[in-house]
């Protein structure tokens, strides 16, 4: 089937959604998604971030769809034409959703552990406004301890249902879910039960904001100070393929490997995630690659850096050398003779 998104055409298999087709094309036309998660069945359609305009339904029925549709749950039709970035209606709808999501979400990015890898932060960067029109009090919840490994900050939750789907689809005996209704609805465990399932840690990986955080990593480091490396180990519970986040030689955090849309390639077990923080436990494969612009990408290089040779007169470089010596002071011990000249004020 042929689908055209923002003027770019692509052939897709029947059953492909508009979002999947857009991801095949890539680039700016890919709608943002806060609740859709390709690895979770039934996800999508809730956050309404990925609304697009279908200007032509199909070759068989070319009528446009009257309402904007959620691209993550709308299947492609042959000849369908979709406007994503190219539609003002769509841009306005995304701005609206961003505004709605930020109504009750605290702007505590400076202290939130998700800062740097928060999908809402990225969404807001692209579609948000610098000011809010909401003057009412935000909803607040008491922080909740929902198990030995996970901390729940309900204030930050945007009710994407991803963690509930992880629990439903990956774990036995789900003990948490959405309770209450409307803007009172919140994620909680049933009657103070602890989440102890072996795959519960994946709830942290799928959370698009900082509502569910890793207790073994909380407040240890900002993510952009960590160096992520792909690593693996033999594990009898999961694939054992992870990303380890290192600060110097210390592994501070272990997560599943994620793609450019922040979705894990394979879910990992709690043992790999929480119990193996020693470098010796892992076979380090190499630096993790980033495809998406994000603050998390700062200071991370996946290409080999070659030394730069400065081709210039040696006399010019001599001045730089002198500056280096002045600035270095005690940090760099001077050679014999240099110290003497320095003391005499000759440099």
């Amino acid at each position, binding site marked *: 089937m042929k689908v055209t998104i923002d003027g770019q055409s692509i052939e897709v298999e029947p059953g492909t959604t508009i979002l999947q087709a857009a991801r095949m094309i890539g680039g700016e036309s890919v709608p943002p998604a806060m609740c859709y998660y390709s690895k979770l069945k039934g996800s999508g359609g809730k956050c*309404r971030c990925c609304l697009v305009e279908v200007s032509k339904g199909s070759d068989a029925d070319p009528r446009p769809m009257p309402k904007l549709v959620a691209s993550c749950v709308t299947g492609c039709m042959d000849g369908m034409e979709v406007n994503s970035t190219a539609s003002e209606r769509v841009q306005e709808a995304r701005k609206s959703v961003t505004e709605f999501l930020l*109504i*009750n979400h605290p702007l505590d990015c400076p202290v939130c552990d998700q800062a740097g890898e928060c999908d809402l932060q990225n969404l807001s960067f692209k579609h948000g406004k610098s000011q809010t029109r909401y003057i009412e009090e935000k909803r607040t919840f008491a922080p909740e301890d929902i198990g030995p490994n996970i901390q729940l900050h309900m204030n930050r939750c945007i009710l994407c249902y991803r963690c509930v789907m992880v629990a439903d689809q990956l774990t036995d005996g789900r003990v948490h879910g959405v309770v209450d*209704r409307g*803007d009172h*609805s919140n994620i909680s465990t049933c009657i103070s039960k602890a989440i102890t399932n072996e795959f519960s840690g994946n709830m942290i990986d799928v959370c698009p904001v900082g509502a569910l955080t890793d207790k073994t990593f909380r407040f240890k480091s900002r993510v952009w100070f960590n160096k992520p490396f792909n690593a693996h180990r033999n594990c009898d519970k999961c694939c054992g393929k992870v990303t380890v986040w290192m600060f110097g030689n210390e592994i501070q955090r272990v997560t599943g490997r994620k793609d450019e849309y922040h979705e894990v390639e394979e879910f990992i077990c709690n043992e790999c995630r929480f119990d193996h923080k020693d470098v010796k436990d892992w076979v380090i494969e190499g630096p993790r690659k980033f495809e998406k612009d994000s603050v998390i990408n700062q200071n991370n290089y996946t290409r080999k850096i070659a030394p730069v040779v400065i081709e210039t007169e040696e006399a010019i470089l001599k001045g730089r050398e002198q500056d280096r010596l002045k600035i270095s002071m005690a940090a760099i011990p001077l050679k014999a003779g240099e110290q003497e000249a320095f003391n005499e004020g000759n440099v």
Partner: protein
Amino acid sequence: MSRKILLDKINVPGIKSYEVYRANGGYASVEKALKTLTPDEVVEEVKTSGLRGRGGAGFPAGMKWSFIDKKSGKPRHLVCNADESEPGTFKDRFLMEYIPHLLIEGMITSSYALGANLSYIYIRGEYMWVFKILEKAINEARAAGWLGKNILGTGYDLDLYVHCGAGAYICGEETALIESLEGKRGNPRIKPPFPAVSGLWANPTVVNNVETIAAVPWIVNNGGAEYAKIGIGRSTGTKLISASGHIKNPGVYEIELGLSVDEFMNSDEYLGGMSSDRPLKAFVPGGSSVPILPANLIFKTANGEDRLMTYESLSDGGFATGSMLGSGGFIVYNDTACIVRNTWNFSRFYHHESCGQCSPCREGTGWLEKVLHRIETGYGREEDIDLLWSIQAKIEGNTICPLGDAAAWPVAAAIRHFRDEFEYHVRFPEKIKNRDHFVEEPFEKVKHLVGKATV
């Protein structure tokens, strides 16, 4: 005198019981359908009748039935939506409470038409006494051989259950109803797939309102063509209207579609005019979710034609000058009604009842209510009126189910038709704070203070 179809036997003493109902011709449609008609012929009769869904959307019932996937080989279901919860709408309760066997009869005939062997009545949690009435009626029908195996010796089997909801308005949305019936949280599903393809337990399912199903026995007994003669144009048959507000005779009425709003409002047969002889200010024709209309658009459309109680006439001109027949919750306001307070009240309801699944509805309904609350209590700002307009526009059309629209439309219509009243609230907060406004001093008398004509 309008023709009665649903309520024609309502005054027969003891009609609630099986014996009296049967003695008055009850269950004749089941006999006729099962013994003389094929399921497809029953569907054709309903199609011919032009019966439109009476829950609010007004989708043609026969067409909905014809969408059911018969090729899948899966079991099919009929689910009766008795989760009536919209403010101002109380017609289904009346029908179920006073003539429960009519619904049971309709369920059996309709289930036969759809080839369903397992059907449900999903009833609002607060209607516990009606739940008990229906259970009793089902037991009576089962004991008399109208339910169970091999009904009337025709080989057709049907089990019918009444299921009580937990009291959530959202469960009146057909897919949320199905989720709830399956024992899950009552969140609407994303459509497609529609229930006719994948509904209850992923089986083909039709969800119809109580009043729609209750009309089926008459259609089968008398023929779809006969039903289509009642009413006007595409608004065929009769409609139950639940009337409330500042009128002399509130209650549930069965009217022929096509009756003029003027006659319905003012004749003694129906509402009997305004109570207390105060002037009419506004009305809501189809339950709290539909747009409110000002007095000048109630009896005449924008084109100057008589406003009729039909789907088409009430929506004439779109939302700029029209509204919707909706579920028939007819609410009338006199000049002492505060439109801002009324809008806030409706908004409070939708905020409370939003399931919270999709962002615009979850966050937007709460925001609307909070801003309206501020305005109504005398703490509004002038920019709040435009803010309300902007919020409702961001909700409408962007949500999973129509609850978002239902929350947005009353706010939009109130601002569209009564903006000066909102402006009065924000410009004279002390007057708002210090009195039960508009009761002693109707808005018409203080309107000049706003210094601006009604938009």
